[in-house]
């Protein structure tokens, strides 16, 4: 057993580091969001930046689109990722080959993904444009629905493997005996899923869901590369507030207010999901 002093010493570097590079910057953002900032001077302005953001229809629409986009992305990626994880072989050469190939999109920087899908949907010369034209549909990023389909497809391509990996790690944590017991009871494959796999999977899946929600909600470089937020503002999301406000010092507070709002939304989502999952596992 290690002593209290040792515990403190072991934790100190990590805690200090996270204070300086995690809590402190966040506190700064919160500070900016309630101040008018001129260079090094600042005046307290209360909720002015927040109300300016919340009453702007631009922000409201971006927020709604972000919520819509992240919900759609989760609605496709979570079931698909889970399904693929359940269908993966348990071991062997094929498994490791498949996993290496599946990780490739995760190793692709967001900006590359953005330009890749832009190139795929170039008019006349993009591969995706060509494939879609075979079934007689004209893919054009000037059409809001097409633009949305392309960026959803892009996100599914980029991130579903993350869900697969998390779900697969959850599945691997289930002892073989559970399956044997289930087969002794002649359990249906649905029953095996519901009572053997699901209880172990749901924590992993919710961590994947939280990570995915955050990234999808704050998506920024990819739609910028593919559609420039267009046509008009059809694919402009909540994070676009940051590069609008980055140009001038004057709107620092506005960007900060949007930052804090986004963080609170993501944190509430994570907290609720986490509570739901851990409460349920206590009940069963």
């Amino acid at each position, binding site marked *: 057993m290690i002593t209290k002093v040792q515990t403190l010493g072991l934790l100190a570097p990590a805690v200090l580091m996270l204070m300086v590079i995690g809590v402190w910057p966040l506190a700064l953002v919160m500070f*900016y969001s309630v101040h008018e900032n001129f260079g090094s001077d600042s005046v307290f302005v209360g909720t002015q930046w927040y109300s300016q953001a919340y009453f702007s229809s631009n922000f409201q629409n971006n927020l709604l689109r972000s919520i819509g986009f992240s919900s759609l992305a989760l609605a496709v990626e979570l079931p698909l990722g889970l399904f693929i994880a359940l269908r993966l*072989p348990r071991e062997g050469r094929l498994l490791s080959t498949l*996993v290496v190939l599946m*990780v490739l999109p995760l190793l*692709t920087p967001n900006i590359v993904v953005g330009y890749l899908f832009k190139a795929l949907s170039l008019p006349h010369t993009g591969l995706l444009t060509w494939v879609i034209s075979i079934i007689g549909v004209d893919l054009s990023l000037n059409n809001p629905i097409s633009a949305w389909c392309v960026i959803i497809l892009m996100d599914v391509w980029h991130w579903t493997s993350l869900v697969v990996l998390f779900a697969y*790690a959850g599945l691997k944590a289930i002892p073989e005996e559970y399956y044997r017991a289930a087969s002794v009871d002649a359990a249906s494959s649905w029953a095996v899923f519901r009572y053997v796999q699901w209880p172990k999977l749901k*924590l992993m899946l919710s961590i994947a869901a939280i990570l995915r929600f955050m990234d999808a909600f704050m998506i920024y470089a990819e739609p910028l590369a593919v559609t420039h937020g267009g046509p008009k503002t059809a694919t402009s999301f909540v994070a676009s507030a940051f590069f609008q406000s980055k140009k001038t010092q004057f709107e620092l507070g506005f960007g900060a207010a949007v930052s804090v709002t986004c963080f609170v939304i993501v944190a509430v989502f994570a907290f609720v999901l986490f509570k739901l999952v851990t409460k349920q596992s206590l009940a069963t």
Partner: protein
Amino acid sequence: MKSQRWPIAALLYVAFLLVPLFWLVSLSFKTEVEIVQQFTIWPHDPTFDNFLLIFTVSSWWMGYVHAGIYVVLNVSVSLLVALPAAYAFSRSEFRMKKPLFVSLLFFRLLAPIIMVVPFTEIFYDTGLFDTHIAVALAHCYFNVPIAIWILEGAVSAIPPEMDQSASIDGHSLLSFFGRVLIPTIAPTIAVAAFFCFMFSWVEYVLSGALTAVNAKPISGIMMRVASVSEGDYGVLAAVSLVGFVPGIIFFILVRRHLLQGFSIGRA
């Protein structure tokens, strides 16, 4: 799980992933004219110019060097800080342990773009702006918590008796870490290193914003090129393909341990 000889669904999924990647390869061997003017699946007139450009123009290949430097720095610092903390979380009892451990995950919820302004301020004030150290430290805010989570699982998986027998053998805490703990959980340390590497390598918002000239990573250069000239798909494709190489090598090295199921799944 029923054993299936051919996991059709998984194969189809992987095929779906490979199509855009094939396009990336194809683009990297095409000339800009071919990319925007005609539809060809294979490069009609293959060229190595895109790759040559990367390896001959120093601002391009130095971008990889800069990224490599801060990623290695970040991975080392993250592991160095996270391992003792993971050990404490696993082995000692203290107040607020559970909430503290769960709240680590909340750092991962701070999108890098939210952190750009305060980090710029902090690193300007400390004179670290445009250094590899700035980016390496900035990336710690999401990598240290992840590393603690992964490593805590590995420490908890080894029986506490091992610590006791080590202390009976006269190991101090430090020599216990070096001689016993680290060799025992080396595979998990490699997995944690891989995750830190991956998150740091693909992150481009902070690494772009916190650097100007001296430490501009490859992603920052790509951003700049992409924003100046609409297109240049061939060069961007070649740059990204080269950028895959370290990640793939690293992943192949640790994949067996990764597949053993890192133990966040044991909850």
